[in-house]
C-alpha cells in the first residue's frame, strides 16, 4: 500500500508491503526498511528494525495517528491517494475563510489582546484563557485582521466554541 504521511507540516511518501504475519517491508521516500512488528496490547506496538527495539504507544483515529516514542510525540496524518486529494480540496477552501480561534477545553477568558479591526501577524497572541488553574495564551496561525470577538474578559467559555474570528489579509498578488 502507498500512503502519504503529513508530519510536522511536511508530506512524506510511504509504501508498506506485508511479507508475512509479522514482517513488513517499509519504504520511506524510497528507502527500504525490513521490520518485525507486533501489537503487544491494544495500543502498543513493538518494532524490531535492524535488531534495534522500539516500543511505541499509539492512538489511531481514522487518518490521524498520535505516536509516543520515548515521550516524544508525533502527530501524523496518514492518507491514501483518495483521502489526500480530498484533503487538498478541503484545505484550499479553509484557507479562503476566516481563521477561528478556539480553546480545546472549558475555561475563563482572562484577557483579550486584540479588538475588531486590529491587524495581527502570524503567531501573535489573541486571547488569554485560564484552564486547570493555568493561564494560556492562544495565538493565531495566520496573519489577518480581527473580524469578530465573540467573548469578553471574565466570561466562562465552553471548549470548541469560536472565541475570535480573523479574516485573512487581502491577497496582494
Amino acid at each position, binding site marked *: 500500500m502507498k500512503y502519504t*504521511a503529513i508530519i510536522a507540516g511536511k508530506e512524506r511518501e510511504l509504501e508498506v508491503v506485508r511479507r508475512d504475519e509479522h514482517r513488513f517491508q517499509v519504504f520511506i521516500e524510497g528507502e527500504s526498511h525490513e521490520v518485525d512488528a507486533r501489537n503487544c496490547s491494544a495500543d502498543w506496538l513493538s518494532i524490531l528494525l535492524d535488531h534495534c527495539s522500539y516500543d511505541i504507544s499509539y492512538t489511531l483515529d481514522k487518518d490521524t495517528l498520535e505516536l509516543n516514542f*520515548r*515521550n516524544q510525540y508525533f502527530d*501524523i496524518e496518514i492518507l491514501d491517494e483518495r483521502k489526500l486529494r480530498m484533503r487538498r480540496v478541503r484545505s484550499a477552501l479553509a484557507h479562503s475563510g476566516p481563521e477561528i480561534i478556539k480553546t480545546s477545553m472549558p475555561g475563563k477568558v482572562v484577557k483579550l489582546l486584540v479588538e475588531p479591526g486590529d491587524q495581527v501577524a502570524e503567531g501573535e497572541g489573541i486571547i488569554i484563557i485560564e484552564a486547570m488553574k493555568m493561564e494560556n495564551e492562544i495565538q493565531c496561525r495566520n496573519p489577518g485582521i480581527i473580524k469578530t470577538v465573540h467573548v469578553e474578559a471574565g466570561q466562562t467559555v465552553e471548549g470548541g466554541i469560536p472565541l475570535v474570528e480573523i479574516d485573512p489579509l487581502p491577497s496582494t498578488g
Partner: protein
Amino acid sequence: MNNTQKIKKILIPNRGEIAVRIQRTCRELEIPSVAVFSDPDRYALHVRYADEAYHLPGSLPGETYLNQEKIFEIAKKCGADAIHPGYGFLSENAEFVKGCQKNGIVFIGPPASAIEAMGLKTGARTIMTKAGVPVVPGTEPLKTHEEAAQEADKMGYPVLIKASAGGGGKGMRKVEKREDIESAFQACRREAQSAFGDPRVYMEKYLENPRHVEFQVLADSYGKVIHLYERECSVQRRHQKIVEETPSPVLDEALREKMGQVAVEAARASGYINAGTIEFLVDKNRDFYFLEMNTRLQVEHPITEMITGIDLVEQQIRIARGEAIQYERVPSRGAAMECRIYAEDPTNQFMPSPGSIKALTNPGGPGVRNDSGVYGGYSIPMEYDPMISKLIAYGENREQVINRMLRALEEYYLSGIRTNIRYLRKIISHPAFLSGNYDTHFIEQNSRDLMEISEDNESIALVAAAILKLMHSENRSNHQDEGQGTQKESPWKVFGRKRGMGQ
C-alpha cells in the same frame, strides 16, 4: 513523654498524589484514613486507595476541599480525631486550624499563630530581623511614591515593589529606574488591594540571578528544632518549581551548616511546631537571605526523605500527637531529585491536557520512586491542577541521580494525554543544569534550547505509522491473538497466591 495522645483516625481533606502519599504512611502506622471527594473525583486514586471515603457534593473548591463546615461535619460522622491537610487547599489557613481546635480535632501541622505570623510578608521580615536572620534589604510598608523613590535611591536600582500581604508572584513589580517608580507603586497598590484586600506595599532590593534554596525543618512541642538539609529549587517556570534536587550544587559544607543553623533559628523565632520549610534566596556572592516560610508539607518533600531515610508524614503525625523528636543530628546520604509530571503540552504553549490515560507504564528499577495520583484508564479532570505525579530518583551522587532520572523518564509512558516528560528530559540534560551552575532564570534563559523540536526518530515514527495504517485497513485485529500473551496469568502469580493461602 507522658502527654502524648493517641490518634485513631485521620481525615485528609485533599486529593491527588498528596492524599495518596499521606494515606500510605497512615497505612504503615496502622491508622485508618478517611478520604473526601468532589463530584469529579469519585474515580480518583485517593478514593480508591482510601479506607473510608465521603462525598463532598459539588465541583468548586469552595463547595468541596475548602468547605470547612462540611469537612468538620464529616470528621464528626466518621470519628476522625485528626486532620492532615496536605499542601494547598486548607493547609495554610489559620482559621481552619482554629476550627479544628474548637472541634477537638488534632491539626497535623503548625499552630494557627505560626501560620498567621508567617502569612504577612512584612511581619515575617520583622520577626526574622529580630532573630538575627538575614532578610533581603528592604523597607517597612511605604506610604507614598515619593517615599518609595527616596528608598530606591538609597538602595540602588533595580528594586522590587511587593504587596505586604502577598505571595506567589502577585502584586510584585521590578523597577529599573526612577521614572518608573510612581506608576509601579500605584499599580502594585491596586493589584495588592484586589488580590489580597490590603493595598500596603513595601520595597526590596532586587537580587540579580538568585538561586532558590530551602531548608526542611522539624520542630516538636518541647522546643526542639532540627533541620533536614536543603532542597535546591531554582528550576522554575512562571514561579512554579518543576525540578528540585538535594544537595544543592551551590552549597559547600560550611554554608550548609550556617544556613541550616539560621533555618532552625528562623523556625524557633516564629514559635513553629511540626514540619516546615524556610526558603532562602542565594545571590551570586553566595550571600543568603530569608524569603519566606512555608508552614506545611512541601510538594518536593520526598527528596529530603530519600537522603535522610526519614518519613516526613510520619514525623508530622508523631509530633502532632505530642511525641518528642528522637533525633539530634540526622545524617544524610547520597543525592536525590524530583521532577513534577504535568498533563500539559509543552509543544502547544503548555496547554493543560486533561483527558483519559489510555495506557500507562510506570518507571521502576533501582533508586526510583513515583508518587502518583493517577492510573491507566483514569480520566484527568479539568477542574484541578494538571500535576499528575512526582518522579523521584535517588542514588550515591548527583551524576548517578541525573542518569537515573533520565532513564526513569524514558521508561515513563502515558498515552492518551500529553505530558511534559520530554521537556523535563531536556531540562536535566541541558549543559547549564548539568554544570550545577544555574539560577531561577534558567528556564527563561534557555527556553529556546528546551523547546527545540528534534527530527530524531521521525523515520521510526513513519515506519510505525505505515504499518499501523496497513494493519488497520486490513481490518485484522492482530492484537487479539498477540495480546493474549500479556494477559495470561503468570505461573508465579498462581504459585504466590497458593502459598499466600497457606497451601
